[in-house]
């Protein structure tokens, strides 16, 4: 059983071919032998005919002699005789060649000797006799008798040779017949042997192919039914021929299929889980994008408010600008007013200086009066009083004038300062006005910016809405994916595989999905989720523990089942 089917078949066919070849060779040889035998037979019969023909040689010679005696044309007869003699020798030579047995050879020699005697009779006795003028009939008769005897001897011997040849022919024929029957027998035996070997080989090979093939078909059918739990028998697997290769290949195929199915199952579970998480993510994203949209709307409204405030700003700033311009003009006017005031004050000061002058002169006069009064002594006493009164008045008016002067001077200074300040104020106001104009321009730019931002926000809003739509689409896709994964699971569950690793894996995935679901639920209550994160984690760990327990139980069950 160590040979491959090819080799086996080859061997079987080789045996058959050898048999066939042997048979053919044998038949060929037999046929060749037969051909030879037949040829020999044919030759022999020809020889027999020739012998019988040659047996009449004497007769021929005799007829010649007779002719020679009768015709007495010696020359012609001699010529004929020589021809006949040559011919006869030729024939005898032929016979000499034909003969193969000792007996025949002696007979042939006898015939030859007899013919030689005839020749010598003819040439030594007959010719001289004939050449004589007178023919001695008695002599002729004697010669004739002698020739006759020899003629008979030739006849007899050659006939004997013919008979012997015929006998031989007969014997050969028998041999031929024997050979044919032997050949037929051997052929039949060989054919039967060949048939037997062929049938046995065919049976054996066929059996060795069909049984495993049947098994292979069975396995293939069961695989087609989705059963991958089959185990290919060891005897097939350990075979070293093509069946073994096939069995191993099928085993490999089953293993690979199992692996693939496992992987697909795993993948299907993973896809389920993934699609669920994707779905949740998509939902989250959708929520997020709707929140985003809301935020964007808020931002938009804020931006609008901002725009309006900016517009107000712009209005205010333009109003401010106007006011500033007016203020500038007013300040200029004020400056002029102050200048006028200063002039007025200076006039006042001038006027006051006149008063002061008058007061001073009055004072001087009063002093002089006082001096006069003092010099007058007792008489100037009253006058002195008047003078001192006048002096007091002058002093008062002087003081008042000085005060006024001081005040006026102070105020002139103040007014001048005020004027200077106002003059300074004018460019400041102008600057303010310019700045306000710039602010106005900036407000305009801001307004433009805000409008751009608004459009950008609009775009953002549309993008967010698209996002929301896209995420909804994603969610639906995820749902579809989930259903597809479920279908895939359904489809792949068609395959039965004997792998206990699957169940825990499945459990794991379901557990994951459950977790995802919990998360999803929690995510819907975002704040709560944030607040209860610890609790949720605790819950999750609890769930995990439970699920793992279940998984273990399942494994145990499986193991038990396997044991049973």
């Amino acid at each position: 059983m160590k040979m491959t089917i090819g080799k086996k078949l080859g061997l079987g066919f080789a045996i058959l071919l050898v048999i066939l070849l042997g048979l053919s060779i044998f038949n060929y040889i037999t046929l060749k032998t037969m051909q030879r035998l037949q040829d020999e037979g044919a030759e022999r019969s020809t020889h027999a005919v020739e012998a019988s023909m040659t047996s009449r040689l004497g007769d021929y010679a005799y007829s010649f002699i007779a002719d020679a005696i009768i015709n007495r044309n010696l020359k012609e007869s001699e010529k004929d005789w020589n021809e006949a003699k040559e011919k006869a020798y030729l024939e005898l030579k032929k016979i000499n060649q034909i003969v193969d047995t000792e007996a025949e050879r002696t007979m042939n020699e006898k015939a030859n000797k007899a013919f030689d005697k005839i020749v010598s009779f003819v040439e030594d006795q007959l010719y001289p006799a004939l050449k004589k003028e007178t023919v001695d009939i008695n002599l002729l008769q004697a010669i004739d008798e002698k020739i006759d005897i020899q003629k008979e001897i030739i006849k007899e011997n050659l006939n004997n040779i013919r008979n012997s040849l015929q006998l031989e022919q007969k014997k050969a024929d028998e041999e031929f017949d024997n050979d044919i029957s032997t050949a037929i027998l051997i052929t039949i035996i060989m054919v039967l042997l060949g048939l037997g070997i062929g049938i046995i080989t065919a049976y054996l090979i066929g059996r060795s192919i069909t049984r495993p093939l049947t098994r292979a078909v069975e396995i293939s059918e069961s695989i087609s039914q989705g059963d991958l739990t089959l185990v290919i028998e060891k005897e097939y697997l350990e075979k070293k021929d093509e069946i073994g290769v096939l069995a191993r290949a099928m085993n490999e195929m089953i293993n690979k299929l199992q692996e693939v199915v496992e992987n697909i199952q795993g993948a299907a579970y993973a896809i389920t889980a993934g699609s669920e998480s994707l779905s949740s993510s998509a939902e989250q994203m959708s929520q997020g994008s709707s929140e985003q949209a809301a935020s964007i709307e808020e931002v938009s409204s804020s931006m609008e408010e901002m725009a309006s405030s900016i517009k107000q700003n712009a209005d205010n700033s333009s109003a401010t600008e106007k006011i500033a311009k007016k203020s500038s003009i007013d300040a200029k006017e004020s400056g002029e007013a102050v200048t006028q005031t200063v002039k007025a004050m200076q006039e006042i000061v001038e006027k006051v200086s006149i008063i002061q002058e008058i007061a001073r002169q009055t004072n001087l006069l009063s002093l002089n009066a006082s001096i006069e009064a003092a010099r007058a002594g007792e008489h100037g006493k009253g006058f002195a009083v008047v003078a001192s009164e006048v002096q007091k008045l002058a002093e008062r008016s002087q003081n008042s004038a000085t005060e006024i002067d001081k005040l006026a001077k102070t105020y002139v200074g103040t007014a001048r300062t005020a004027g200077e300040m106002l003059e300074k104020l004018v460019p400041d106001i102008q600057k303010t006005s310019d700045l306000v104009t710039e602010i106005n321009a900036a407000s305009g730019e801001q307004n433009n910016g805000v409008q751009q931002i608004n459009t950008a926000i609009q775009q953002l809003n549309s993008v967010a809405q698209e996002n929301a739509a896209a995420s909804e689409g994603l969610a639906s896709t995820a749902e579809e994916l989930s259903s597809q994964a479920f279908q895939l699971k359904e489809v792949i569950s068609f395959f039965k595989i004997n792998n206990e690793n699957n169940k825990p894996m499945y459990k794991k995935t379901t557990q994951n999905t459950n977790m995802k679901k919990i998360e999803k639920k929690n995510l819907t209550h975002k704040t709560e989720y944030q607040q209860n994160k610890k609790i949720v984690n605790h819950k999750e760990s609890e769930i995990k523990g439970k699920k793992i327990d279940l998984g273990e139980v399942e494994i145990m069950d499986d193991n038990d089942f396997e044991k049973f």
Partner: protein
Amino acid sequence: MEKQEAADKIQEVKQYLTFTISDEVFAFDVLKIKEVLEVSKITKVPKTPKFMIGVINLRGSVVSVIDLRLKFDMEVKGFTVDSSIIIVEVQYEGELMTIGVLVDAVKEVVKLEAHELEAPPKFGMNLNSDIISAIGKKGDLFIIILDIQNLFSEKELSFSKQEDISMLLDTIKQEKQAENKE
């Protein structure tokens, strides 16, 4: 009765005209003063003592004007509105002579009683004590009462008459040296 008492008082009470030079208050006896004038045009006279700044026309008569600042070796300042010329009478060679004294400002005519007067300090004064007759006290204010006769002594006036200024200056130097020695 009352009038009598008042007259007595007048006898006791002397009147003085106060004026200022460089914020210091000086006074002349009213009885020596003829009148007070504003500063009018002062005509400069060549070859006169340095403190004599020129002459003025007082109702037709020529009156010499002396700058007290120069007299007191004080820093010379320009005229102000308050600058006044006090016309005083000085005994010179047995006859009354009228002299104008330029001061920074004329204040008032004050009455000072005897108890309000004190003798001038003997030394430590910048001015010759001869020219100070007394120091009056009016509240916190001190009034330096100048003796007009001594201030414009014959010698000085004569010097002022002399045309040798260098001599006058020498004399003044000597005087100052003497003062310093004192």
